[in-house]
């Protein structure tokens, strides 16, 4: 047990360092995905016909194995973190775009009519009325995207040392130290649970206007193991 946190030197980080690296490689793609998804979703809300093809494209992208992404990207971005984070960013879209679109569309018709009647222009209405009311749905989408991103970072070990906690799996094998594999799995799971709880906290802070007890549960169905 005292060798549990004894990380082989080829990983160039101690355990804490690996956790930090893992979080960065998992969370930056979610943030990037959110920044991409917001304008895409807004377009889909305004141009209804655009939504089905966009959904289709995000689903197809999600279906491409990360290895295929790596093969293509490695020529441009090398064996870097970026090569890992780009596919992860693309994968979050399959959850985030529908979460935002459905959230924005679920704003009651009366609320929208009232906003228009009070003289809100389309942009102001989107930012000040539709997005805030869609917050619970967006956060629900973020939770799924974040948890799946945290588990997916590990595949970065395929391009050598870019899998953060995932690299421990590789080392467990080559050094024949099974406790490293346990460390990898348990730490990843703990991170996912912690970050998820944090997001729930953020949601509660952001939405004091929600009747308590009616937590957002939409888009959970999108959660798929990869």
């Amino acid at each position, binding site marked *: 047990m005292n060798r549990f946190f004894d990380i082989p030197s080829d990983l160039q980080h101690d355990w804490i360092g690996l956790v930090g690296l893992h979080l960065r490689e998992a969370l930056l793609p979610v943030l990037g995905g959110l920044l991409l998804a917001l304008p895409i979703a807004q377009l889909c809300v305004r141009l209804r016909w655009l939504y089905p093809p966009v959904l289709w494209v995000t689903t197809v992208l999600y279906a491409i194995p990360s290895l295929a992404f790596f093969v293509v990207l490695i020529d441009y971005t090398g064996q870097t973190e970026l090569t890992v984070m780009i596919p992860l960013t693309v994968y979050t879209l399959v959850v985030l775009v529908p979460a935002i679109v459905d959230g924005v569309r679920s704003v009651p018709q*009366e*609320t929208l009519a009232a906003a228009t009647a009070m*003289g809100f222009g389309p942009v102001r209405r989107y930012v000040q009325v539709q997005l*805030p009311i869609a917050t619970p749905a967006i956060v629900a989408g973020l939770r799924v995207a974040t948890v799946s991103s945290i588990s997916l970072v590990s595949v970065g070990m395929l391009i050598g040392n870019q899998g953060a906690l995932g690299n421990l799996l590789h080392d467990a094998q080559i050094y024949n130290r099974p406790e490293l594999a346990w460390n990898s799995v348990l730490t990843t799971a703990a991170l996912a649970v912690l970050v998820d709880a944090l997001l729930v906290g953020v949601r509660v802070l952001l939405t004091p*206007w929600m009747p308590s007890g009616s937590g957002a549960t939409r888009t959970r169905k999108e959660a798929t193991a990869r």
Partner: protein
Amino acid sequence: MRISGLTGQAQRAGIEARHTPAARLKHNRSRLSPQQSELGWSRAGGNGQTRRVFGVLIRIDSVTKRYPDGTVAVDRLSLEIPDRAITVLVGPSGCGKTTTLRMINRMVEPSEGTIWIDGQDSRRQPVNTLRRSMGYVIQNAGLFQHRTIVDNIATVPRLLGWSKDRARSRARELMERVGLDASLARRYPYQLSGGQQQRVGVARALAADPPVLLMDEPFSAVDPVVRKGLQDELLRIQDELGKTIVFVTHDIDEAVKLGTMVAVLRTGGRLAQYAPPADLLSNPADAFVEDFLGADRGIRRLSFFSAAGLDLLTAPIVAVDATAEQIARAAQGAPYLLVTGIDGKPLGWSEPGALTAGSVDTGRLLSYGRPFVAGEDSLRSALDCAVLSPAGWAVAVDGEGRATGVISQTAIAEAIRGAHEAAPGVGGTTGAGEPKALR
């Protein structure tokens, strides 16, 4: 200007004849400019029973709305909406009421025709400026669920660039005006009842003090008791603030109660009749309007006649401690006597023979039903009291609830005939201006 039916034409002349020269002069200055909106014009009545009509603020001029799918929602509609009065649009579902209302603030653009606001084509000003000068209230209030009550009400002032503090203090002022407790200010909409939310909706529409209020079935989602409260509140607010209100409903009783003018629309978006409610009830333009008004329009029309002129009898009233002599005198010519307490308030009816002089057994009196207030209530209330009373006589009381007289069904019927003869077209309330439904 197309108003169907002769009554409409006559009535339109009526509206214009009622302008005082002074009101007309003032009206030449823009009603929509902010400096003017604070001017306190003299208001007739003041007790909410008479409402003076000032002029036309919104003129809907031969407007047609054809939706992209070909539906003609409104067909060559022309309406002159009077200033500082409540104009009600009423009609069956799908007759184009909401469409008409939304064309006024350009949430829907007319396909043909023009809407003139205070003499100006509504398309000539920026659409959001136009909308901010018109409060808008809808069913279920349409509140912003993510904002507190004060912030909901402060929305339009904030859009107009007021500081947060000023907008919020204005919002608190309005909460009081619409009868909302100040403790609700920091709550969110989900923590309010439907009736309270509707009040917030009205307060929000009033926040920037717009001259015009557009209301689309605002009270139809609440129960009848709350609805009546909201209607009374609206009439009170209208008396205080003198807004130009366009009110959509499919409830003819609500239309008659609230409207200074009532426009009945028929399916296909055509105007069936445009008249004050008393006229509508006495002279429906055609079978459609008559049908829409329902079976008891005769009874409802009595709401427009005051009970003040009734010949009340005081002789058949005796106090609980009446002497045998007093009872005998009162009993002459009256089948029943009304017994009152020492304080003058009615206790109940009794046959004269059943009364014991000196101290009446109040337990054996017959119920007197619900009394009417002679100075305030209508002939409808008086008749209602008489019909409900087991003795067939109505009891009139004063403001403090003391019995001031009694009257039989027969005498009320006599008075109703007299009132109809005196005012065959328009209801005969006192004072200038459009007659308003009494309680």
